[in-house]
């Protein structure tokens, strides 16, 4: 078994891997609580939410495995590592599709026509990305290791950018709509638990979006280590906060409800009577 000399690994890589593992633990905790919630409620909505965050969690796992494998192989890109890295964009779009459909059941009010068209658009983009990745994995293996492809013309184009842009556009579209709608509903709601729950969901979703955008940003500044570490730190913080916030918003554990909820009239009257 090949051993890696850990002293050769740069501190920046250590930092990024450790922060990714911590984030992974947070996302796994969220998935487990959603799983428990699903077994308790057994509804289509909880299943969609669980599927969505399970896939998000899987992308984090692949990303960590990709980085660790790369270090383990001392930077040599093998086919397995390469394929591991290319799986992330294939998983993330169905995750957003599940999140969108969950949102449609409880928060968004899209009608069937809008839902069908949006789902079709997401699936067409997903199909294109899958086809490009499959073609690349079979024939070229240049999508991630050599991001640029020189055409016969003078232009230099990259496969990765359209994929990244598609991911960013869809993630912004789905999460910002759910976030905005949740915050709007929270503003209209009179019930304190519902109001705080929707506010928490809105904040959590926007934090997750911010973390996702920071992820996209830090992968494009790999030649600037100091900036990359700073962005990674903020990204890790945003992910961790987003997972905690989304746990509070989506699951609404009993202790959180109890904290939000004011004492009822009967409780106050009864306790006053006890004090006398």
């Amino acid at each position, binding site marked *: 078994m090949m051993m890696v000399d850990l002293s050769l690994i740069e501190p920046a890589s250590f930092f990024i891997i450790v922060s990714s593992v911590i984030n992974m633990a947070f996302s796994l905790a969220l998935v487990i609580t959603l799983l428990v919630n699903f077994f308790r409620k057994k509804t289509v909505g909880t299943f969609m939410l669980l599927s969505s965050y399970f896939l998000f969690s899987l992308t984090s796992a692949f990303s960590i495995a990709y980085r660790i494998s790369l270090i383990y192989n001392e930077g040599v890109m093998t086919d397995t590592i390469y394929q591991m890295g290319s799986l992330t964009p294939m998983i993330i779009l169905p995750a957003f599709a599940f999140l969108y459909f969950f949102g449609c059941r409880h928060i968004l009010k899209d009608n069937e026509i809008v839902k069908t068209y949006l789902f079709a658009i997401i699936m067409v983009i997903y199909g294109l990305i899958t086809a490009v990745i499959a073609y690349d994995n079979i024939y070229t293996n240049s999508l991630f290791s050599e991001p640029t492809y020189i055409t016969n013309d003078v232009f230099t184009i990259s496969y990765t950018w359209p994929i990244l842009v598609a991911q960013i556009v869809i993630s912004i579209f789905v999460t910002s709509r759910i976030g905005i709608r949740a915050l709007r509903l929270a503003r209209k709601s009179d019930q304190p638990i519902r109001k705080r729950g929707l506010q928490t969901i809105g904040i959590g979703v926007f934090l997750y979006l911010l973390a996702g955008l920071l992820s996209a940003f830090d992968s494009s500044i790999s030649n600037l280590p100091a900036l990359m570490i700073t962005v990674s730190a903020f990204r890790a913080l945003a992910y961790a906060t987003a997972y905690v916030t989304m746990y509070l918003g989506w699951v609404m554990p009993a202790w959180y409800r*109890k904290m939000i909820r004011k*004492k*009822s*009239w*009967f*409780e*106050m*009257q*009864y*306790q006053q*009577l*006890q004090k006398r």
Partner: protein
Amino acid sequence: MSFLQRLFRTRTKHADITICGLDDAGKTTILRFLETGEFVDTTPTMGVNRETLHLPNLQVNVFDLAGQEDFRNMWHNINEKSDGIVFVIDRSNVMRFDEAKEVFEQTIHAQLDQDLIILILLNKSDEPNVIEKSLFIEEFNLLDLPFKWAVFETSAKTGDGIFNSFKWFVDEFIG
């Protein structure tokens, strides 16, 4: 009791109670009054409303069941597990007394727990032409009931009797 059992024994008791009664008797309005302390106009319940009361040494889970005929078949599933029943009657609606009595008897006879506590609320006391409490007790044969019970006159509009009735109920649980 061993030292460890005493150490980890929860001091807070838990009680599940259900609010039953015909539709439009005022069950949800009573529940909302307990929550807010004021009259809240409600819509017919579809399914179950749940409220938890956190009192000193007692946590009460209140299940407000839909009173429509279609939903009554579901009651026994929840009632079986409950420690107490609140039965709400619209005392101004003489036309539905027989129906209310039939439903009340069905609910009571389905109970297995002999320690069950029953609170009967003669609601809508603010309305004219209401049935007298003594006459109601006689009509509903309450004196023959094998459970601990009490009847209170209430109004979820004015709040009369709501606190006292539930206080009696809670005190019975705390013992």
